[in-house]
């Protein structure tokens, strides 16, 4: 195996453990916003998508890249917005209505 790829494995394994540790401490109250936030974060695929779309090596790759940027953008915009909307609803004291 390529030894130069070993650092990637270290990063992957450490990030997974860090993720497990961080998520374990998230209150069950917030599991829905947690999922919409991680969903937005996993739209990090936009980085690869932009590169493919921008390099314009073949028409085929440019089309796929542009589609991928679109799909990722939907998740970035939608994911952060809905997470924020959900969190705004969590209030401690009941607001005086009417």
């Amino acid at each position, binding site marked *: 195996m390529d030894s130069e790829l070993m650092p990637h494995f270290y990063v992957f394994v450490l990030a997974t453990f860090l993720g497990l540790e961080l998520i374990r401490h998230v209150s069950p109250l917030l599991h829905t916003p947690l999922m919409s936030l991680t969903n937005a974060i996993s739209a990090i695929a936009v*980085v*690869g998508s932009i590169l493919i779309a921008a390099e314009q090596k073949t028409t085929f790759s440019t089309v796929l890249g542009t589609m991928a940027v679109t*799909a990722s953008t939907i*998740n970035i915009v939608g994911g952060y917005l809905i997470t924020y909307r959900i969190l705004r609803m969590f209030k401690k004291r009941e607001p005086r209505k009417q």
Partner: protein
Amino acid sequence: MNENLILIVYLASAGCFILALKWLSSVPTARRGVIIGIVGMLLAVGGTLLKSEVVEGGFASYQWILVAFVIGSIIGVPMALMPMTAVPQRTALSHSFGALAAALVGTAEYYLQTSDLSHFVMAALGIEVLLGFLTFTASLMAFGKLQEILPTRPITYRGQNVVNISLLAVAVALVIALIVSPGQTYLFPIVMVLSLVFGVLLIIPIGGADMPTVISLLNSYAGLSAAAMGFVLDNRLLIIAGALDGSSGFILSIIMCRAMNRSFTNVLFGAFGQLQVSPAGAAVDRLAHSATAEEAAALLESANSVMIVPGYGMAVAQAQHSVRDLFDVLTKRGVEVTFAIHPVAGRMPGHMNVLLAEADIPYDKLLEMEEANAELPQTDVALVIGANDVTNPAARHDTNSPIYGMPILDVDKAQTVMVIKRSLNPGFAGIENELYFMDKTLMLFGDAKTFTRELVKELLGDRA
């Protein structure tokens, strides 16, 4: 821009994502978590747009990206403005977009680099494409079931598991063949098609009640395919963000499985809610006590503490705002009102909390299962609205019950139990609930929303 500088920007972005998850752990800091998450994403996108490959392309490069940003935003914003009851569907749909992006990038990479793919990169690419395409169709199927475009009942046929597993085995075998010799381009489209088909077949036998687990699992897959993309593109930011997402979905699916006392294999291959046949005629000679809104209101009013146990039935009946009115009336009269939330109440992890928060119920009144069970023996009235199996005491003692061993809310330990329900019909699993036939249980027959409103009316009327 200097490539080293971009690497530093990426590192900062990864740090932001880690902080975002850390701050999301509790409500007071959660909004800060979203903001830092946005900062992380802006850094990642900004850094990428300044990379030399992109800048060299000039306007031609940017125009398509700009078009994609605009289209993505036009679709993304309305998707974020859906009502809270639709959040599970929205989440499933966005998992499919995330997975699609990873799969498309993987496909493009494969055809661009076919000749100089190393075995290792081909392995990562194979995982990216396999997970990406199967998660794409599986999430679309989950969306269809949650949106009720597709039948929510599990669909099973003889030999289903054999078909599914062999299909996956063939796809994996082809990926291995590609790893051995990446140049076999004719194999790649076959892998794509098999993954797409497998995603569909995977969800067909899964029922509506298992959706919380399935959504979490798909969340994990979407993250892992992004991490695999990081290996292909030699980009550690992708690996970190993908791994964080992957571990998050993984933990949530374990929590969901535990809350239903089931294993992954059982969720994916068990087709819950189809196979159990409830023993016929068991309930014929049993009698349930029922009460009117007036009687129930009198009991609620004289109670010191009331614990409301909401289930998905409450959301289906759109009763959460009436429940909030009930909460208000009782609280004003000095009754201590809390809510007991079972981990699988709702259609995705934490969904019930969001629905109640939307109805303006303060989040410090929402109790997790363990807290609720500690308090139930000292509770005067447990009011069950639209929940069923998660309150069935059979899960504790009846070894023959299909839900035996599932953690439940011990509402039967409260002084008095009230259940708002349309009829005595069993729930999704077709299991008789012995709670309904206990001496301390009062059945309040009716629609959740209508009955709650009647209760509120009675309570308000008393005062006038």
